[in-house]
């Protein structure tokens, strides 16, 4: 039903992680399922570039017309970039959650943490359970 790219990793709290080609950088956003639960996104609060965050930390907030939701860091690392476009165009999170709607990029500090993330199939089951 939902749109869950096979090459990404996921958290049960609906963040996705893309390990970039360099193997050192991870991009984080929220899933198609998450944006559809939230509805129209109106504000995104992002971490500061340079901040060191640990897996499971609150790394930001996404606010829709309907609700506010925390964004958790899927893995530990230093924030090396944030998506500043979201300040003016928060609706990108709704229209392109996996592309231009990304939130921030981390320099991965512990690659072992990647093993704890879900693959697309496991995450699809989370969404499925959500729907019932």
């Amino acid at each position, binding site marked *: 039903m939902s749109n869950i790219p096979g090459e990404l990793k996921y958290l049960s709290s609906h963040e996705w992680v893309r390990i970039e080609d360099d193997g050192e950088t991870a991009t984080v956003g929220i899933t198609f399922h998450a944006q559809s639960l939230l509805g129209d996104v109106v*504000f995104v609060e992002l971490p500061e570039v340079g901040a060191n965050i640990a897996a499971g930390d609150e790394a930001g907030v996404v*606010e829709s*017309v309907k609700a*506010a939701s925390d964004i958790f860091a899927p893995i530990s690392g230093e924030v090396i970039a944030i998506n500043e476009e979201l300040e003016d165009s928060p*609706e990108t999170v709704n229209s392109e959650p996996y592309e231009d709607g990304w939130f921030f990029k981390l320099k991965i500090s512990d690659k072992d943490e990647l093993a704890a993330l879900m693959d697309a199939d496991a995450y699809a089951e989370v969404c499925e359970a959500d729907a019932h």
Partner: protein
Amino acid sequence: MGNKTSLYQAHLDSGAKVVDFGGWDMPLHYGSQLEEHHFVRKSSGMFDVSHMTIVDVEGPDSRPFLRYLLANDVDKLTIEGKALYSGMLNEEGKVLDDLIVYRMPQDYRLVVNCATREKDLAWMAKQAQRFNVTLVEKPELAMIAVQGPEAIDKVKACRSEDAQLIESLSVFQGKERGGWMYCRTGYTGEDGLEILVPEADAVAFWKQLEAAGVHPCGLGSRDTLRLEAGMNLYGSDMDESVTPLESNMAWTVALDGARDFIGKRALLAQKEAGLCMRLKGLVLESRGVLRGHQKVIVTTESGELAGEITSGTFSPTLGYSVALARVPTEVGDACEVEIRGKRVQVSVVAPPFVRNGQRVYK
């Protein structure tokens, strides 16, 4: 599964996301709540409000009954079809519900909230015992609100046989013809109509409006529109724990004169003693969204006093957040709100925030 209006299938056909609302399966949105909001502010949108309860009050005592039942005075309705907004109070002056009453050619018609239907009907039946009146529910009528600057023209084009009647309506007036009733009322702060339609005609009319370019809108945009318009939502902004004087509804209470009504004594006593709390508008022009139940902090010379947001949202028209909040009467033109553990400064204003597409608060 909840109750379904006669338009339920039409909503699914239009891609509605359906949620439970007061026991009814109603559309929340048809894709984007924000877009629906803008359609109503800029052109036209329509809402299925068939879940609302319509009750006709008939009989020789209908006028004295309503003068006793309601805080506002139906004697203000001197012109046929004219509508009046009123609270229905208990003996303590607390709000049982808010409603609209129309002066029909014979007698009166009430439109009350769906979530309070059973409570309202029981209360009205109880109060009616002393009067020679009959209460007749009208479940056979669907109700469609068509709202926005282009709404009335669109309806006239779809219902050319009734165009003249529609044109003759003044603001807050409704007229019936051939089983249809056109009311120049709404819950959005825009011009438009609320149309009572025989259930059998509802789907065809809805599809006709849709074909004419009237955008289907769900409860999500209905809420942001009414909040921008500074209109209370029963169950959020007022309920049986507060009086209309504490709910920015003093204008709906006709306290002067000899007329007695349920709750009058309590309201006079409250007025005499002075109010502690008031419903005001809050505006947050920086980032963040004000939401229901957030704590409001009012700083006075003698310390901090607490209030609470009763409804809050991002305002799509203004591009920042607005709210209604019950706050201590000591409040000045600024106060603080606790948003997710952080205090932010907000302005205190008199609602409404938006009317006819434009910012109106000062």
